[in-house]
């Protein structure tokens, strides 16, 4: 009395279920950026302090870190001391992307905590961050001298990140 094809729906369902269960135990934030190996998206904005125009071409010519942060973001204050450390080593330039922030709040925050950034792109609407595929602050992109994205890290960066990701690139 059983129709042959009627086994199909439940089989498909079980397969989908397998993927759903296996996906549940994995961290979705580990999905790498589709930007890796590709040039940074074009953008044009102003710098946080000087309000000068800054575009993606201004950053070309050397390997740098692009750190996405905001004064409102808790994770950013955790990683901030470490970013100051990296900057004091003078091994790599760090740019900031100030994400969904207010200018005075951001400036205030940096004046209190110190400013490790060579220059800061001001992105109050978050539209540049959207092009970068930012899920939320903090995030850090490692970008080479030709403006190609080499690595993306979600969440606060730390010593392990510096040793594993940044050092090999600098030493090359």
């Amino acid at each position, binding site marked *: *009395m*059983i*129709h042959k094809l*009627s*086994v199909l*729906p*439940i089989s498909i*369902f*079980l397969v*989908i*279920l*397998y*993927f*759903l*269960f*296996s*996906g*549940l135990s*994995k961290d*979705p*934030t*580990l*999905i*790498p950026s*589709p930007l890796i190996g590709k040039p940074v998206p074009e953008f*044009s*904005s*102003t710098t946080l302090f000087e*309000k000068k*125009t800054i575009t993606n071409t201004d950053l070309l010519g050397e390997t740098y870190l692009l750190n996405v942060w905001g004064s*409102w973001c808790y994770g950013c204050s955790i990683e901030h001391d470490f970013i100051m450390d990296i900057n004091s080593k003078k091994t790599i330039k760090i740019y900031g992307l100030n994400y*969904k*922030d*207010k200018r005075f*709040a951001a400036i205030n925050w940096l004046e209190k905590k110190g400013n490790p950034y060579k220059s800061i792109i*001001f992105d*109050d*609407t978050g*539209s540049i961050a*959207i092009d970068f595929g930012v*899920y939320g602050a903090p995030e850090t992109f490692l970008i080479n001298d030709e403006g190609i994205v080499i690595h993306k890290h979600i969440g606060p960066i730390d010593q392990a990140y510096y040793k594993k990701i940044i050092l090999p690139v600098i030493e090359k």
Partner: protein
Amino acid sequence: MITEVGNFILSISATLSLCMFSVIFFKKYVGINSRYTFCKIISLTISFLILVSFILLAYAFLTDDFSLRYVANNSNISLDTIYKFSAVWGAHEGSILLWVLVLSVWASCIPILSSNMPKNIIIDMLSIMGILILFFLTFILFSSNPFDRIFPIPLNGRDLNPLLQDPGLIIHPPMLYIGYVGTSVPFVFAVAVLLNGHINTEWISWLRKWVVTSWVFLTIGISLGSWWAYHELGWGGWWFWDPVENASFMPWLAITALLHSLIVSEKRELFINWTILLAILTFSLSLLGAFLVRSGILVSVHAFANDPERGLYILLFLSLVIGLSLALYFLKSKLLISNNQYSITSKEFILLLNNLFLTITTFSILLGTLYPLITSSLDLGKISVGAPYFNFIFSALMLPIVFLMSFAIYSSWSKTNYSYLIKKLGLLLFYSVIIVYIYMNFYLQSDIFVVFLALSLAIFTIFSSSIKILQFLYNSGCSNILKSIFSLPSSMVSNIFAHIGIGVLIIGITMSNYYSIQKEVVMKKNSQVTIKDTSIKFIGVKNKISNNYASQVGIFDAYKNNNYLISFFPEKRTYNIQKNIMTEAAINSTLTRDIYVALGESLSNDSWVVRIYYKPYIQLLWYGVGLMILGGLFGIFGRNKLENIK
């Protein structure tokens, strides 16, 4: 107080829904009439109790009772009253409460609107509703309780997410939920029918109204979400193929397919077990959507509070409910196969093709949405599928459906005279192609083939549908036009409206996608920018203080041929509590175009980055959706039979 009463009411409701479910086991021991009355009263009581708990939560919001964690996290003293109310469903806990409220109301409507349905089917439907309600209530009580306390009690709340402080979002979630949850009715119907092992066409025509109703709500809900994105996000886009959007779109596609297969099942007693399967599928996709949104398993731009533990709970429930119903389908669906034959030249065959394409589309979107999960489980690396995949797949599968639409309208049940059909529609298609060709060559001066294809099909659909209805009016022979319009059978009016709506929608999507002009410019005071035929002058920026935000309002005057047209006042708002910055674009709409002005960053010396978009015919998108909804409403409220027609 509110915490205790709220928890008490929800626990009582959970117990009652367990009672309602258990009725299914008492078939042999209790008479049908008492079981029926019992279920009817219980379902009404549950929906009343949940409504009371919902009102309690709303009361807590309106009186700023920050002793509730949920209120403290999502409201603020200075929030506008209307947003205090909509904050009730602004975050996870409250939206699940809204979900279960809607579910219980749908359930209690089943016996009230049961008309001629046999009581045993209604009882089974309600029992299964009981287990669904029980699940959501236990979910609320154990892992997402909006009545949880917070200590110490904060003096002020953390405010509602500013993104949600928008009129569009007051009604978007309730509409969407009514639609989403409405898919539970065909689901419990399908399970009840499988349990009973037989079906009849009167039941199907009864079910059709329910399905159309939830289709209408789902359509309204999805389009409101789109409309909100267009107005609020300041990107000028209205659909992003985000996992959360897909989660609402897949049930829509499935329920659209269901709507069509129900017609065939009702009129011809065909595809009945396919219809039953689709009913299960539609609800499964709704639950899957809830799971995807709540579990954080996929990364989405929609910032919901995600929690894998909640995800696990929904997933376990989903596997149980869907697994069991599909197993039941596997065992029992053979009982429902009819021996009716159909020919390749019939309406039912075209509707079968429609179902085939809609199902394939649904699965392609499901595949795209789950792709990151699949590849990562199989260790193929993590790959995300983006908008290009969805756009391509979706348009490639939609165009044949749209092409078939006109044929479905003109063909007849059982057997159609194809040579007559092709002659008639071929001519219409030819005219449509010519018109679009002339329009594109001489007026638009563009030769994009996809646009040509899409526009031709859209015009073809609009023509063929309108002519069908005009023909009907003409044949009815009534001298009074108004009278003859009202004498049209509602099923016809409803399908013609919906299909013209699709045509209009396609024109809107195609034109605005391919011919939008976008300018991102730096403007100083009194400088001008010309976009298409309109020049826009930047007058200045003034500050505005509101209850819970401060904003900078740009003033722009638009001129057309040196005549003043209109002023634009785009805003940049900074919300006091969460310090978010929101862009409020200013939009001027006419039938043929939208001009969209959004304020970007302020630069030194009084100049601003300004984004200006010119979007041709984007209004047609909303008109098209409006027509589809109107069509659906005709389907719900109109008369079914061909009466008063000569």
